[in-house]
């Protein structure tokens, strides 16, 4: 089983920042349909700050990378996605403690802990039409990174017909049906970057 060092996580998050940056307008467009049209700029601001912080501080362990990234998201994003993605990465980072390298089972375990923390913090159930609908199947597909990316994409797609029960989209009631959840879309980008990072190894 492959082992992942701090560089792997750094590369992942930098690649994720690039993906979010490139797709920010699409994310904002999705959020415009059933939210408040800021998810793209929120995620761009946060992920660019993460990339900059990682560049500057060069944390030495996987856990430190994720903790720094999570803290940076909390301090720069705001909105719902800031605390949620921030919690995901911070809890995952904490779970990895200060090991130098994490094998893929540990990565899966850490991310699962992060996802559970998000679910608890946000009180969201499966099929509530949130980022969790992309994150959960992805984590379950690990340690197969390609399958995880695929699951995240399909999870995001699967939010389209759902009626939102959490987040701003829930205010729309029936009218939230027929649109992809922006947070699920950004989750698919993050997991997609993770899979590409793993493939590059």
């Amino acid at each position, binding site marked *: 089983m492959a082992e992942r060092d701090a560089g792997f996580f750094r590369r992942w998050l930098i690649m994720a920042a690039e993906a979010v940056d490139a797709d920010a307008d699409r994310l*904002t*467009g999705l959020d*415009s*349909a*059933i*939210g*408040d*049209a*800021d998810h*793209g*700029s*929120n995620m761009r*601001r946060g992920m660019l700050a993460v990339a900059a912080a990682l560049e500057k501080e060069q944390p030495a362990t996987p856990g430190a990378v994720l903790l720094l990234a999570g803290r940076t998201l*909390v*301090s*720069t*994003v*705001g*909105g*719902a*996605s*800031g*605390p*949620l993605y921030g919690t995901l990465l911070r809890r995952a980072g904490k779970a990895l403690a200060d090991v130098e390298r994490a094998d893929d089972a540990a990565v899966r375990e850490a991310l699962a802990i992060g996802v559970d923390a998000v679910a608890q*913090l*946000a009180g969201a159930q499966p099929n509530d039409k949130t980022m969790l609908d992309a994150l959960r199947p992805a984590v379950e597909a690990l340690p197969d990174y390609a399958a995880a990316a695929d699951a995240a994409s399909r999870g995001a797609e699967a939010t389209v017909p759902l009626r939102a*029960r*959490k*987040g*701003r989209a*829930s*205010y*729309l*009631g029936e*009218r939230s049906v027929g649109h992809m959840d922006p947070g699920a879309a950004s989750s698919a980008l993050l997991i997609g970057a993770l899979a590409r990072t793993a493939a590059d190894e």
Partner: protein
Amino acid sequence: MKMLINGAERVIADALRGMAEAHPELVVDVDNRVIVRRDAPVAGKVGLVSGGGSGHEPLHGGFVGPGMLDAACPGEVFTSPVPDQMVRAAAAVDSGAGVLFIVKNYTGDVLNFDMAAELAEEEGIQVAKVLVRDDVAVTDSLFTAGRRGTGATLFVEKLAGAAPEEGAPLDRVTEVARKVADCSRSFGVALGAPTTPAKGSPTFDLPLDELELGIGIHGEPGRERRATMTAAEIAEAAVDAVVEDLRPSDPVLVLVNGMGATPLLELYGFGGEVARVLRERRVAVARTLVGNYVTSLDMAGCSITLCEVDEELLRLWDAPVSTPGLRWGR
């Protein structure tokens, strides 16, 4: 869509710089995005902190001053601020008497303020929180995000803001804030969508002969789209939605609120219809405030908020307030 800006990413910083120029009575920390009354912390006084996404001005920054908020934390446009801002604000206004966070009920605001409260308490600041969730267009249920916080925020900030001036301690101020939040309901209508700097075009399309009922203050579409209605019909729909939920027996404060781009001329006309409908529904009006107070950038439309008041709350409403956005009595 054209905007009077220097670029989407500079909007908040530029606005804060402008606030600093116009309001020497406030300390505006542009880098850290905190607006604090200059004389804070006021010895012995409970501190009131609020904040939320920008784009709702004068809420919240324009409500900082004697008799209302001690500090406000502006987020990006329609985006909750981050915990760092709130902790900094709490530290700036805490005199030792504790701090009340006034939080509009949105997932983002709630999560960020919760994190901030934890951090502030770690720093030894006593923190209480009140949630504003007044929008009757949203079904209130345990399985959803719950009702949005909209126009009632003004009432909570004003009435709770007046309590410390009467010497009320943190638990009493919190009680007042809860009571106001509990006694307030809102309903909003959009005639057109706002344009956010990030998107650069209206957040939804609304044909010339339609309007949205049950909108929030973040450019989200409403619960229902309808063929154009007269001001009288809109007033009936809005008042009925609020009154059926609130069922007030005491007199009410009325906020006839513009969403940003509706002329004051129209807003007053609408306010007249609201007064008529309230009379017909036998709801007594104690005070009426008409204007753009809880806005949604350049959204065309309006909302009404009713707050049922007893003598104490009415006294707190009439108490002096001196902020950029709301000022009377001194």
